[in-house]
Each structure stands twice: as C-alpha cells, then as structure tokens.
C-alpha cells in the first residue's frame, strides 16, 4: 500500500474553501443581545463618531456666522476652502504655491526616513543578534530617545547650520530611535523553534540570521517604520522653524506671523491628511511584504 492511502483531507485550506458553508438561518436569526448582560465597551460606535464630527462642524459654522468668535481667532469654515484655493495659486504671504511647500516637506521627511531605514534597521538587527553591538548602541539610543527634538534642535543648528542638512538631521534622529528599537525587538522575538529548525537542517550562524531572523523580524520592523514616519512628520514643523523659506510647517508659521488664521488651519489640515495618507501607504506595503502578519 502507498502512503497515499492514509492521506485523507484533514482540512481544506482557508482560501481553497472559498464558499464556507454558513449555518442555516444565520441570516434570519441575528444574535440577540441578552438584557442584563453587557461586555464593557461592546457595540458599534461609528454613528456616534459621525454625529460628533457633524455637530462640531455645525458648531463651528454657527459660532463664526453669528459672531460668537472673532474671525481672527477662528475664521468661517468656508474661508478654509478659499485659503486653500489661494494657497494653491501661491496667492498668500510668501508667494509660493502650496505644491512647492508640499514637495519641500515631502522631500525632507522622505530623505530623513530613507536614511533612517538604511541605518537604524541594520543597527537594530545588530543589537538583536550581537551582544557587542547591543552594548555599543544601547546607551546613546536610550539617552537621546526620550528627548523632545526641540530640546536638541539648538545643538543641531550649531553643528549643521540652518541649511537643509540640519532639518534632515533633526527628522532623521526622530525616525532613528523607534526604528532601531523595533528592529531589535523583532529580532529578539523570533521563535526559538524556527532558529533550532534551521540549525538542525544544517544552516550556519550567518544563514540563520539572514534566512530566519531577519525575515521573522520583518513584521515588527514594519510597525517601527510606521511609527518612525509618524514621528518624522511630527518633527517636520520643528525642523522648518529653522529659517526655512518653503515647506508646510514654514507656511503655517509664516501665516501665523500675518495672523492669517485661515491659512494656519488649512495648513494643519493638509499636514494631517498627508500623515494619514502616509500611514495608509505603509499599511498597504505591509500587506504586500508581510502577508503572514497576525496569521501565524
């Protein structure tokens, strides 16, 4: 007899199953809540959130149209749109179109982020696999990690001047620590069985690091990248306070000097939307690169 005789289907794979049989009456009989039994925080909250947002916008509209708040403190909502249109054409203080501010900011954040990725990820992995690297990198990173970037900004200006380098260095430092920490945690979290399995199949120490430890750390590294790019974007405005002539942060600061509150709010909204789009992009790349995350 062949081994095939014992291979019965012990289960179908999740995807091949396709149409999972649904229990009959699943549609007709929804799960009934039991009165007197509640899990803390159960139930949907989307509707409440939507109502809250609408209420806030209405309050804003009413408060500005009835003159409860002066225009200089909070402009009317529609002013935000017109200031966006003006900024788009470059028709604001400083005279640069919005796209120029946007590209300068994007360039600074991405340059710093890419630099952080190519240095912090190897450093974090080295800290995870080597006690020597851990001993070397641990004190400086642990020292500067909790510092607010604005605290060491003056030092960076003294060292690097007020040109692009200083801005990129500041954002780079903000990205570096969370990335290195995530890479290190990812390496430390690799299942010992996976390492043992590789060794028992004849892999060398370097092969184990390259073919097991690094791929296994990828989900954590991606989480670190998401946090890092968020930190970098947060630090952007601080970086652009240093004698910048363009950039979203500079645009907001410059507008505040002219008491253009509408441009300030518009700039804040643009920065927020771009940050959200970054996060969506990172999540999309994450699904492509580490599709097994959370499934093992």
């Amino acid at each position, binding site marked *: 007899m062949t081994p095939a005789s014992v*291979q019965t289907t*012990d289960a*179908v794979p999740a995807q091949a199953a396709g149409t999972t049989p649904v229990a009959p009456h699943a549609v007709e009989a929804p799960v009934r809540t039991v009165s007197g039994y509640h899990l803390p925080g159960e139930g949907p909250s989307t509707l409440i959130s939507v109502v809250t947002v609408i209420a806030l916008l209405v309050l804003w509209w009413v408060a500005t149209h009835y003159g409860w708040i002066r225009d200089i403190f909070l402009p009317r909502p529609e002013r935000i749109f017109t200031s966006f249109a003006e900024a788009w054409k470059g028709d604001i203080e400083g005279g640069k179109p919005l796209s120029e501010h946007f590209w300068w900011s994007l360039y600074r954040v991405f340059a710093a982020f890419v630099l952080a990725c190519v240095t912090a990820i190897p450093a974090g992995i080295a800290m995870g696999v080597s006690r020597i690297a851990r001993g070397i990198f641990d004190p400086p990173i642990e020292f500067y990690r909790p510092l607010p970037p604005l605290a060491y900004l003056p030092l960076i200006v003294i060292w690097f001047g007020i040109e692009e380098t200083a801005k990129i260095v500041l954002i780079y430092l903000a990205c570096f620590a969370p990335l290195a920490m995530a890479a290190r945690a990812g390496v430390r979290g690799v299942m010992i069985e996976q390492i043992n399995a590789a060794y028992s199949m004849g892999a060398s120490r370097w*092969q184990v690091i390259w*073919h097991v430890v690094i791929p*296994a750390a990828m989900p954590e590294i991606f989480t670190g990248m998401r946090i890092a790019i968020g930190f970098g974007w947060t630090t952007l405005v601080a970086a652009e306070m240093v004698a910048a002539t363009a950039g979203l942060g500079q645009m907001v600061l410059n507008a505040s000097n002219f008491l253009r509150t509408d441009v300030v709010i518009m700039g804040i909204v643009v920065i927020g939307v771009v940050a959200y789009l970054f996060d969506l992009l990172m999540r999309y790349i994450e699904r492509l690169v580490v599709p097994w995350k959370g499934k093992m």
Partner: protein
Amino acid sequence: MSKLEVRDLSVHYAGRAGSNTHALSHIDLALDPGDFVVALGASGCGKTTLLSCIAGFMQPSAGEIVLDGRPVIGPGAERGVVFQKHALMPWLNVTENVEFGLRMRGVSRSERRRIAQDKLRLVGLEKFAQSPIYQISGGMQQRVGLARALASDPEVMLMDEPLGALDALTREQIQELILVLWWETRKMFFFITHSVEEALFLATEVVVMTPSPGRIAHRYKVDFGQRFIECRNARKVKSDLQFIALREEILELIHSSRAASELEANAA
C-alpha cells in the same frame, strides 16, 4: 550500519540560590535503523531535555551521545527535528519550506525541487506545493514539518510532541502517516508524547520516564505499529485487548510514580 547511542546521560540545570535541578539522570538508549522509540511521561520528566541533547541544541552535563561512532556536539542535518509548534517559515511557501535545509547546504535548484516534490508526495501534499504556510490547516502544517525533516534524508527523526497541538481526529490521521513514513524509510525514529495510546500505537519500544530526577522507569517492546502496517486498521489495533491491557498498565505506572513523587515533595 548506523546506530544512535545515548550513554549514561545526565543533565543538571544550575538554578537560583545554588539549587540544582536534576533534569536527567543516567539515561541509556540505543536505536538501530527501523527502531521507533517513544519517550512517554508527564511534563517535567525531562523528555524534551533528552531530545534537545540528541538534536544538539543542549550540552549534557555528563555522558555522551554517539551517532555512527561519532559523538554529537551540535545540531546537524543527519538528525531531522519535527517540532510541536511546527516552526515553519511563513515567508516561504510549502515547497520552499521543504527545500530550506537543502538550500542552506547549497543543493542545486532543480535537485532540491525534485526532492521537495518527492517528500510532499510522501505526506500527501503535492496539491499544496505552492500554498502559503499561513493558509493551510494545522494538520497540513505538521505534514510540511515532516516533509521538511525528511528532505535532508536524516538518519534519525526526532519528534518533540509533533501532534500535541492538533485536534483528536487530525492527530490520528497523522499518527498513521508517521507509521507509514517510518515503515517506508526504515529510519530511526525518536518520538516524545504524553499520550499513552499514541506511544503504544507508534512505538517499537516505549520508554516510560518519571520526573525528579528525569529517568527511565520502564521499557516496553511492542509491535502495534507493525500490526497497523499489516492490517491498515487503526481502530482494530487500538481496540485489541492486549493494547488496552498494556495501556492501563502504563497509566497505572505513571499515576503511582506521580503520587509517590508528590508524597516525597510533601515530606520534604
């Protein structure tokens, strides 16, 4: 003729405050090709420690392990390991997982494809060769684990409770698969479990271990696995009166030794 020998093996763990845990005490074992030794015992009896020593993940405090006349001093491809948590690489698909060891040792691409296909056919997974690991069931993942260990063509298969995380029905199917693989390859199998029935069904020799210190309390030579190979009816083998009697005898032995060790612990 290859042979695996464990000679007078002891393992001590240095605990805190100078306490010394005696994980294994004077273990002797000998396996020839075609032997299926199952180490059986409650948790804490040192069976996983014993397997880790044979696999080369752990250095014994005393005694030695010899395979083909050469002492075991670290992990090696001639001893394939199947883990309880299958320990597959989720970034590789089924075939790539089976090929992993061959790739690490520089076997050519076409050669390792051929071997991987052959082993996947043995475990009945040829249809899932390209599937991602995280989309197949637990039973199939463990089959991949078996195929992966077999791909290196090891002399010894070491299995650390490979079926512990599976549901009862899947577990019985994989038990039968393991027996067929053993019968076809005639390799040395060393298997760990805490299920008496599983041990009796698979083994040519059941080694009953008891804790503190971990030692071998009893050895039973059995042939139920071979009976299954002849009749291919697991239910018939497991409901045999001899099988049931032996199962009860071993259960009694484990329970009495546990009661004794608890008494000792209370007295101390």
